[in-house]
C-alpha cells in the first residue's frame, strides 16, 4: 500500500515537472512573438511594404526594397541550392552506399554544421572578391550553401522511403535506370521534398550573418543580381544598431514583417505535408 502511494506521488510529481518544462520552453517563444508584435505593430502601414527607406530624421518610408531584395536573394539561393541539393539527395539515395557516397554524406554533415558567418566569408571570397562588388548573387550563393546540406539530407531520406517495388515496376517496363530515378522515384517523393524545401527556405530567409558582406544593403530599388541589394535581415540589423529612436521602431516593424513571411512559409509547408498525408485523392 505504501508502495502504491509512493508511486502515485512520483507520478504526479513527474507530470508537474514535465508540465513546467513545457511552460519554460514556451515562455521565450510566446514572449518573443508578443514583443515583436507589440513593438512592431506601431510602425505598420501600407507604405511600410511599398516605400523606400527614408534618410535619418525624415518620417515615413518603408522597407519595400528590402522585401523585394530578400525574395530575390532567396530565389537565387533556390536556383542554385535546389538542383544541387536534390540532385545530391537522389545520388545519395540511389548510389550512395559506396565510398564516394559516404564522403558526400560526411561532407554535407560538416557543411550543415559550419557557422553561417563563416559561410558568408566563403561566399565573399568566392563571389564578391572576383566581381569586386557586393551583390544579390553573392548573398544567394551564401544562402544556397546553407540550403544544400539540409535539402540533400531530407531528399535522400524521402527518396529512400519510396518502396523498392516501384523502382522494379518501372525497370521491368524497360525504363532506363536514370529515368526511373528521376521520373518515377523522385516524382513519388516530390511532395515530401517540397515540404522540406519550404522549411529550408524559411530558415535561410532569416539569416543575417551570411548577407552582411555579400549582398550588403541598398537604399534604393534594385532588381539587378550583380548589384548590392537590401534584405530584411540586414535592414533590421542596420536599423537596430543605429542610435535613432525612429529607426529602432523600423527595426521592430521590419522584424514583424520578416516573422510574418517566415510564418507563412511554415504554414505552407504544413498544408503541403497535410495534403500529402491525406493521401489518396
Amino acid at each position: 500500500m505504501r508502495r502504491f502511494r509512493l508511486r502515485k506521488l512520483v507520478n504526479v510529481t513527474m507530470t508537474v515537472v514535465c508540465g513546467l518544462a513545457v511552460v519554460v520552453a514556451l515562455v521565450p517563444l510566446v514572449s518573443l512573438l508578443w514583443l515583436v508584435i507589440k513593438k512592431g505593430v506601431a510602425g505598420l502601414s501600407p507604405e511600410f511594404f511599398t516605400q523606400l527607406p527614408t534618410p535619418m530624421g525624415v518620417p515615413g518610408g518603408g522597407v519595400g526594397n528590402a522585401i523585394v531584395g530578400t525574395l530575390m536573394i532567396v530565389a537565387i539561393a533556390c536556383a542554385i541550392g535546389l538542383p544541387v541539393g536534390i540532385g545530391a539527395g537522389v545520388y545519395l539515395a540511389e548510389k550512395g552506399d559506396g565510398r564516394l557516397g559516404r564522403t558526400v554524406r560526411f561532407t554535407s554533415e560538416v557543411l550543415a554544421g559550419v557557422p553561417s558567418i563563416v559561410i558568408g566569408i566563403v561566399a565573399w571570397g568566392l563571389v564578391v572578391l572576383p566581381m569586386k562588388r557586393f551583390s544579390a548573387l553573392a548573398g544567394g550563393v551564401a544562402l544556397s550553401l546553407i540550403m544544400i546540406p539540409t535539402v540533400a539530407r531530407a531528399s535522400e531520406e524521402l527518396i529512400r522511403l519510396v518502396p523498392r517495388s516501384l523502382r522494379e515496376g518501372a525497370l521491368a517496363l524497360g525504363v532506363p535506370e536514370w529515368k526511373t530515378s528521376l521520373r518515377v522515384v523522385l516524382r513519388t517523393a516530390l511532395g515530401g521534398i517540397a515540404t522540406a524545401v519550404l522549411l529550408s527556405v524559411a530558415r535561410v530567409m532569416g539569416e543575417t550573418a551570411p548577407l552582411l558582406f555579400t549582398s550588403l544593403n541598398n537604399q534604393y530599388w534594385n532588381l539587378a543580381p550583380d548589384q548590392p541589394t537590401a534584405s530584411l535581415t540586414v535592414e533590421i540589423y542596420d536599423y537596430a544598431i543605429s542610435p535613432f529612436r525612429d529607426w529602432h521602431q523600423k527595426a521592430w516593424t521590419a522584424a514583424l514583417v520578416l516573422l510574418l513571411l517566415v510564418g507563412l512559409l511554415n504554414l505552407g509547408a504544413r498544408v503541403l505535408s497535410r495534403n500529402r498525408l491525406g493521401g489518396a485523392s
Partner: protein
Amino acid sequence: MTAAVKIDVARLDAWFGRVHAVKGVSIQVPERGVLAVIGPSGCGKSTFLRCLNRMHELVPGARAAGRVLLDGDDVYGGSVDPVLLRRRVGMVFQRPNPFPAMSIRDNVIAGLKLNGLPRDTDEVLERCLTQAALWDEVKDRLGGSPLALSGGQQQRLCIARALAVEPEVLLMDEPASALDPIATARIEELIHELKERYTIVLVTHNMQQAARTSDLTAFFYLGELVECGPTEQIFTNPKESRTEDYVTGKFG
C-alpha cells in the same frame, strides 16, 4: 510440343552472394504457352523468373550463369541491352505496384511515355485496359489516383501497364497471392485470355492455380528443377516421388 520454342533455358545457375539460389535448371517454354512454376518458399522460383528478364542482376551481389534463349538469341549475350530486353519480357509482381504519383491513365501509358515511344496513347489506353479486363471499371475515372482502386483492380492495372509496351513474354511473380479469391479468379481468367497472344511464365504458391491456368508445370525444390512436364501429367502422374509428395500435400 508442336509450337516453336519461345524461351529456352539451359543449365541456368543463379547466386545471391554465396547463396546458390538456382542450380542448373533447363526448361523450354513454347510460344503462347503458359508455364507454371511451383515449389515451396525459397526454392528459387522467383529468382528463376527474374533471370528471364535480367531483373535478377539488379540486386547487389547477384549473378547468373548459363544460357537463356529468347527466340534463339541469348539474353545474356554481350550485345543485349537489358533495358530493351525488359520491353520484350514484361513482368507483373507479387504486390500490386502502381505508381502512386500518376493517374490511372498515366500508369497505363507510363512505359510508353518514359521510353519516349510514339504511340496513339488513347488507343493503347483503351486496348490495354480492355485486355486487362479493367476498362469498364475505370473508364470514368482515368484521371483519378490508382490508390483508390481495390487490390485486384490495382493488379490488373499493373498488368495493363505491362501490356502497353507490347511485350512478347509476360512474367508473373505470384500475381494473385495478395488478392482475395474473387480477384484471383479474375486474374486467372485473364491469364487464359492473355495466352492467346503472349507467352506466360507464372510463379505461384497455389497448386490449384497452376493446375487451372497452365499448360506446363515445373516443380522446383531447393533451387533444383525436380520435374517439368505437361501440367496434367505433373498433377496426376508425376515421375518423381518428391513431386508427388508436394502436389498431394504431403510436404511443403
